């Protein structure tokens, strides 16, 4: 009886993407995160069209205007203006471009290099592992911001170089995580079975072991996305990241700290943007991990 049901239900196996969406959509938080990220991406891409004002335009007649629902606010500047009269909403929209770009760049770079080094260290062990891991330990031993500052000082201050510096600074986390996961997988029977099946080193590392190490990496990557945005802000604050007029969320936040008492909106909205984006990525990361792990499927 149960057998006939099984046959009919699996006659047309669903497309892998369809199946992935089925499991992903069961997690409400993950879907909310995904929706929010999509909105931010659309806003970032269409900032030229959507933004009510140019991001650099200084309205000298409207310094520190509060958001429209407060006394003194107007619908001309929906979220108010900053200390030199620039529209905050427009700057946030343009800032989304930079923040997302930094996050994506840092995560892609550090994940790609980190997975490669971590897998090599975890698979080959011995001297290779010792060399890679000791270098990573040295990098971890230095205060991360100090190391980033040093790297930016060598490369020259710009947003792009700041992203590279942050990617290098967070690299040891990915390497350690991948290595630890790889070591625990290498000894398992299914890896031996793969060797017996004739798989070469590359196939064992990237097709057999790597997919089984991905769950912690996906979570780390989504968390890394948010910390990359924050680190970029810190570098921007020190004048080593986004250069002043550039509307980057972190530097907007840093530059406006002095107005925290007088004009809360100048600080709150960039902070809120970072918070919500970071939260959305974390929620989505959780959902991704669950949907990508076959053991979670029933």
């Amino acid at each position, binding site marked *: 009886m149960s*057998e006939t049901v*099984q*046959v009919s239900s*699996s*006659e047309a*196996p669903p497309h892998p993407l369809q199946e992935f969406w089925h499991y992903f959509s069961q997690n409400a938080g993950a879907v909310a995160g995904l929706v929010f990220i999509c909105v931010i991406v659309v806003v970032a891409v269409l900032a030229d069209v959507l933004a009510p004002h140019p991001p650099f335009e200084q309205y000298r007649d409207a310094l520190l205007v509060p958001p429209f629902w407060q006394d003194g606010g107007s619908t001309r500047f929906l979220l108010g203006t900053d200390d030199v009269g620039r529209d905050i909403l427009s700057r946030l929209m343009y800032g989304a471009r930079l923040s997302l770009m930094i996050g994506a760049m840092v995560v892609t770079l550090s994940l790609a290099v980190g997975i490669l080094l971590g897998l090599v260290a975890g698979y080959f062990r011995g001297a290779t592992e010792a060399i890679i891991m000791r270098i990573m330990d040295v990098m971890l031993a230095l205060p991360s911001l100090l190391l980033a500052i040093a790297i930016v000082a060598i490369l020259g201050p710009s947003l792009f170089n700041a992203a590279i510096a942050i990617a290098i600074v967070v690299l040891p986390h990915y390497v350690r995580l991948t290595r630890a996961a790889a070591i625990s997988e290498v000894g*398992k*029977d*299914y890896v*031996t*079975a*793969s*060797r*017996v*099946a*004739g*798989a*070469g*080193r590359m*196939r064992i590392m990237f097709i*057999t072991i790597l*997919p*089984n190490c991905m769950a912690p990496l996906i979570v780390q990557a989504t968390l890394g996305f948010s910390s990359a945005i924050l680190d970029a802000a810190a570098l921007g604050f020190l004048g080593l990241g986004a250069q002043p007029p550039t509307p980057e969320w972190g530097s907007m936040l840093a530059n406006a700290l002095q107005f925290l008492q007088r004009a809360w909106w100048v600080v709150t909205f960039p902070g809120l943007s970072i918070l919500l984006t970071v939260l959305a990525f974390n929620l989505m990361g959780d959902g991704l991990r669950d949907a990508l792990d*076959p*053991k979670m*499927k029933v």
Partner: protein
Amino acid sequence: MSDILLAVRDLKVHFPVRSAGWRGAHCHLKALDGVSFDVRAGESLGVVGESGCGKSTLARALLQLIPPTAGQVLWLGEDIAGLGDRAMRPRRRGLQIVFQDPLASLDPRMTVGDIIGEPLRVFQPELKPDQIRHRVETLMGTVGLLPHMINRYPHEFSGGQCQRIGIARAIVLQPKLVVCDEPVSALDVSIQAQIINLLMALQRQMGLALIFISHDLSIVRHLSHRVMVLYLGRVMELGHRDGLYRNPLHPYTRALLSAVPIPDPDLERARQRVTLTGDLPSPLAPPTGCVFRTRCPMADRRCEEHTPLLEPAGPGRQVACHHWRRNADT
């Protein structure tokens, strides 16, 4: 003997071990110490012994998953001992393994189709995906799985089904010899019988040779042509199944056989048991002379001083004991 597939000569696997403490003394754990035997095409060799006697090490050393310390492993007349992964690759086609833990030996992120098809993709890259799929589905039918389950993941299967998948993966390249490392000890008794019968059917159909490692003497008796008894990494006795079970020559074999329960309660009550006292000695410090002497009811001074060599004791029979002639009479 031209039909000898695998000839093992004086195989030794020693693991370097450091005793506790800083700069502890180096010593060697002799997991296998001078094992020799042959496997002919189409025959099944049962390997028995208690836990820790080197059964699984033997399986892995034969496939060069653990490099042997010394000795020869002649596969089709060619010594493969110590060959690296790359050199072993073409030879793996004919020499496969079935693992003890059915679920752990299957990649949790691959579908059944990918797992069974992996050897095909590696060794026959010219095959198209639908050809591989067809071969895999046919094979799934052969080992008693429903072919429509091809897109499922290992954790969706029961232990017995997982072991069928493992067997399918081992025979997909039509090997000559499959090493079965306790393939049924993790399964329920009712499932054990199904898997054993499947292995025997496959052996008949494909002319497979099997090395069947187990601690279950009844199962080994059921499917082996010849049986090898291991103790502490050494061969104690080797012989044809019927002769060995009817008239065990080595005192350890006798003790093992007398521990097998007999289903008939009258016979069970009437028989004399040879019970062993004590535990398996540490393989780090094996006894001098005969390794079994510490637990042997027949041990004397000679056993303490001279290591008994494996000597012929009748047709196809080998025993490593100074006193086997005394057992031959009884």
